[in-house]
């Protein structure tokens, strides 16, 4: 946008307005402030003007001037990020303190950030004293569910002293009937907005200074049906005919007797009355969304743009000023539409040339995102693509995904294919759509395509045209060109990263390693993003192959590169993977330390990160294994309170997995099995090596419950057969199968000897020992001890368990033993009774833990509210504003905020309205 903030200003009309107190009065009902004011009517009905008048009339009232946050929407606001950033900016124009946290949260991005951003903004709005109106003008341009969803949520939780006002040509999908039923909606529609004869007379004769007689006014009002835009044009036309009753008579009669579309008839009439030069100026510049003198000159080839705009502004002809200094204007949208239609009819083909000139003017000023739509409108796709490449860094920085996708769609495949940066962007789009073949095809195009060092527009047959600046001299590269060239240099590494991700999605580990390795070779030392991603893939591949030392080293590099690239969310989120690698090495302490450090870092950020919940869950898993059930449960609850917004989709199953472990520890095996079902439903394959498959975990639970047929079904369905050489990714399955065989032998003593099972376990124990898979070694040793015991060789069983226990003294593993149930408890008893054995003390400890299962605690929620918090809660349920409540409690607004924050946390809600709802449900109110 060329005029920063122009869409955030309450439009200031230059001309006198007709008082419309019959409408503004309806919105001033002192009994209630409506939650939503909806002004819905077709183009040109005066919706915006009415809102301006309404805000003005409230300001004239009894010192109760509302704060007005104004936002004129445009197509870019269909993008959720764009919409939220403009909404926050609009609120901040009224109160600079408000929305600071929301802005910071938005800047951090990530999935589900919108909810947090909105909750933060609502809390700041709640703290504002006095009435506030948020105006969303031109809401009909919004066509995305994401934005409708946010506005619905905004309406739902709007503090009582805040009103949302929406002007639109189309009823918005915002549950209007519910608001209407609750009496929270004030509607002004086309029928209300139509000018009455009295208002028309006031407008034509008083505001426009005409002298029409009553019959003429009535005729114009009838012919235009009170349509504000029609009346305005009619007034302008009448003025060109002298403006008095006598001069205008012919015009009024001709107009009233015509069937022509009001807009066509009147525009012709007005244009006819203008000097040729001004008429040509209007037609030529009608293609512009925003007008300023020099830009107009670039289109008309003349030098009088500034004077022409000033003349139009003075004459109230079609223009709206966009800035205080009246340098920038836009046409009334309706008139611009009509002028463009006239331009197309009078001078076919000129619109394309004008659009090209506008694109060049913006491009020469490095305003690429402004230039691109004009280049596209001109049909100059090659030029648009070149500009798109220059705009890319800015689009990414501002997270304008919507514009990015829209322009990518607007460009033909061959134009994209010739530009490596855009082709890679298309590959990225295909990757999100899981179209792996599409990814590779576009990556091939990106690698084959020529670098964009040729002349602008050359290869795409756009014809010879370039900006006036480019024609006269060969300028040094601009910042944008340097940024693009830097991206081009980094592109080969990123292409290999994308190829690695395709290989990983296809389960091709050698391919992943080869591609990621190549990416690391190609990436420059400061190319942190490519380095981080490549190291990540290498680390994951090393983990999948069981090379845990390399995995930890490489993945640690990846985390450092991500941090250097400024990506805090992903850097902290990667802890979830790194910690699991440490767990596999038997280093529960290191995993715990990493989680705790990451959580502390996450807490220093405003609001939860998209991975904060995942960190809580990961730590809960480690704590559960260590036997610290209560702490584990606290972290699970913290993750649940943060909700899905604080968890990446590929991690969502983990909560249920850890909860299953916790329930199992408490002896509630049925509930644990149910949790595993939910975990499996949420599991997203392909992101991480599947080293602990959920079906195998469920089979282990089935074995513990004695449901051997179910476990046998698992082995059959997943084709798990005894394998002499168990590789690392298969180890968990193999150890589950060995458990099943031992359990069957226990249940049916004649069910076959365990010699072969023990032999395979020998292999697994020594393989794990050699490779440093400590947790797997413990797992295998435990199963082998159980196998010996089932085979009747108690001495060997006690020996195995004793060495496993000795090691667990260091590692802290607890559930690994206790989850085995009764046979293990007996075996632990055997070890504990023989003090000469290693691990005897540890056995006694584990037995103590097993005999005192932590009491299952269910917090009803809200019970922990303090007296003061309950007092605040009762006031929150009233209509009082934040500052009013603070005054009543004799505390500062900040102190009140602290109280409300505590209440929100305890009630697991984000907003005042939700807190009141929840409190009512819990019977606290």
């Amino acid at each position, binding site marked *: 946008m060329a005029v920063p903030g122009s869409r955030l200003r309450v439009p200031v009309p230059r001309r006198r307005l007709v008082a419309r107190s019959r409408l503004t009065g309806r919105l001033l009902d002192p009994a209630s402030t409506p939650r939503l004011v909806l002004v819905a009517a*077709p*183009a*040109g*009905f005066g919706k915006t003007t009415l809102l301006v008048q309404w805000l003005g009339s409230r300001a004239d009232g009894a010192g109760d001037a509302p704060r007005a946050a104004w936002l004129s929407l445009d197509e870019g606001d269909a993008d959720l990020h764009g919409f939220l950033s403009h909404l926050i900016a609009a609120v901040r124009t009224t109160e600079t303190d408000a929305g600071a946290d929301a802005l910071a949260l938005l800047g951090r991005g990530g999935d589900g950030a919108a909810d947090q951003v909105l909750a933060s903004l609502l809390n700041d709005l709640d703290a504002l004293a006095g009435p506030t109106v948020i105006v969303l003008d031109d809401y*009909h341009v919004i066509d995305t569910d994401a934005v409708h969803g946010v506005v619905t949520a905004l309406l739902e939780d709007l503090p009582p002293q805040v009103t949302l006002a929406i002007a639109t*040509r*189309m009823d918005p999908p915002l549950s209007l009937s519910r608001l209407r039923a609750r009496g929270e909606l004030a509607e002004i529609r086309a029928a209300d907005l139509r000018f009455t004869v009295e208002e028309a007379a006031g407008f034509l004769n008083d505001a426009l200074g005409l002298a029409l007689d009553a019959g003429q006014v009535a005729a114009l009002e009838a012919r235009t049906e009170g*349509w504000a*835009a029609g009346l305005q044009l009619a007034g302008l036309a009448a003025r060109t005919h002298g403006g008095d009753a006598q001069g205008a008579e012919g015009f009024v009669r001709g107009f009233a007797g*015509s*069937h*022509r*579309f*009001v*807009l*066509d008839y009147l525009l012709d009439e007005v244009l006819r009355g203008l000097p040729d030069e001004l008429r040509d100026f209007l037609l030529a510049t009608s293609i512009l969304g925003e007008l300023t003198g020099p830009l107009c000159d670039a289109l008309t080839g003349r030098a009088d743009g500034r004077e022409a705009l000033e003349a139009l502004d003075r004459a109230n002809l079609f223009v709206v000023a966009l800035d205080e200094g009246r340098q920038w204007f836009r046409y009334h*949208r*309706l008139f611009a*539409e*009509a002028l*463009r*239609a*006239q331009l*197309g*009819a*009078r001078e076919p083909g000129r619109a394309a040339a004008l659009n090209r000139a506008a694109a060049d003017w913006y491009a020469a000023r490095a305003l690429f995102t402004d230039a691109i739509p004009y280049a596209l409108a001109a049909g100059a796709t090659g030029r648009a693509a070149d500009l798109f490449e220059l705009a890319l860094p800015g689009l990414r920085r501002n997270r304008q995904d919507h514009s990015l996708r829209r322009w990518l769609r607007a460009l033909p495949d061959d134009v994209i294919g010739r530009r490596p940066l855009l082709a890679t962007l298309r590959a990225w789009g295909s990757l999100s759509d899981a179209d792996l073949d599409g990814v590779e095809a576009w990556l091939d195009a990106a690698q084959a395509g020529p670098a964009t060092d040729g002349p602008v527009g050359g290869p795409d047959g756009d014809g010879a045209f370039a900006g006036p600046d480019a024609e006269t001299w060969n300028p040094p590269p601009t910042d944008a060109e340097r940024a693009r060239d830097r991206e081009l240099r980094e592109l080969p590494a990123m292409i290999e990263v994308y190829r690695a991700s395709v290989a990983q999605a296809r389960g091709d580990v050698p391919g992943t390693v080869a591609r990621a390795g190549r990416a690391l070779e190609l990436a420059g030392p400061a190319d942190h993003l490519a380095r981080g991603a490549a190291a990540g893939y290498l680390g994951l591949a090393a983990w999948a192959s069981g090379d845990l030392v390399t995995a930890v080293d490489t993945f640690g590099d990846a985390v450092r590169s991500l941090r250097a690239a400024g990506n805090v969310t992903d850097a902290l989120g990667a802890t979830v993977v790194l910690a699991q690698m440490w767990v596999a090495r038997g280093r529960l302490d290191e995993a715990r330390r990493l989680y705790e450090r990451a959580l502390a870092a996450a807490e220093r950020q405003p609001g939860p990160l998209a991975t904060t919940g995942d960190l809580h869950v990961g730590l809960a898993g480690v704590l559960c294994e260590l036997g610290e059930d209560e702490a584990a449960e606290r972290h699970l609850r913290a993750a649940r309170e943060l909700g899905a917004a604080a968890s990446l989709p590929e991690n969502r199953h983990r909560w249920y997995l850890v909860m299953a472990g916790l329930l199992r520890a408490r002896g509630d095996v049925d509930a644990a099995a149910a949790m595993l079902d939910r975990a499996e439903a949420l599991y997203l394959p392909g992101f991480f090596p599947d080293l602990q498959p959920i079906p195998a975990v469920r089979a282990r639970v089935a074995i513990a419950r004695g449901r051997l047929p179910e476990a046998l079904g698992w082995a059959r369905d997943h084709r798990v057969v005894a394998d002499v050489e168990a590789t690392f990714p298969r180890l968990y399955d193999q150890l589950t199968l060995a458990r099943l065989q031992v359990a069957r032998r226990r249940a049916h003593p004649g069910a076959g000897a365990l010699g072969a099972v023990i032999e395979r376990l020998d292999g697994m124990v020594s393989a794990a020992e050699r490779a440093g898979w400590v947790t797997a070694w413990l797992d295998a040793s435990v199963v082998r001890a159980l196998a010996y015991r089932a085979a009747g060789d108690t001495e060997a069983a006690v020996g195995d368990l004793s060495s496993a226990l000795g090691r667990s003294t260091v590692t802290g593993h607890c559930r690994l033993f206790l989850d085995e149930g009764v046979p293990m408890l007996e075996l632990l008893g055997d070890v504990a009774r023989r003090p000469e054995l290693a691990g005897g003390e540890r056995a006694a400890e584990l037995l103590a833990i097993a005999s005192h299962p932590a009491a299952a605690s269910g917090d009803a929620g809200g019970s922990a509210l303090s007296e003061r918090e309950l007092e605040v809660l009762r006031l929150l349920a009233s209509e009082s504003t934040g500052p009013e409540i603070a005054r009543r409690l004799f505390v500062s607004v900040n102190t009140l905020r602290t109280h409300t924050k505590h209440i929100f946390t305890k009630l697991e809600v984000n907003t005042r309205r939700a807190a009141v709802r929840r409190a009512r449900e819990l019977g606290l109110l």
Partner: protein
Amino acid sequence: MTGYLIRVGGHLDDHWSARLDGFAITRQADGTSTLCGPVRDQAELHGVLAGLRDIGATLVELRRLDADP
């Protein structure tokens, strides 16, 4: 392609045709205009309707034409 007929209030000038996806405009004696044209799908039809909305035209009738003329 499916043909549609749209009727709006007032006599629209022909120059709107380009803005309205090339729909052919016929002015009727009753003071309305009919716009006829083929669309590929519903999205395209809604584009034309949004165009009419944005120029402030009053929608009177919308009808699908069964067979291609």
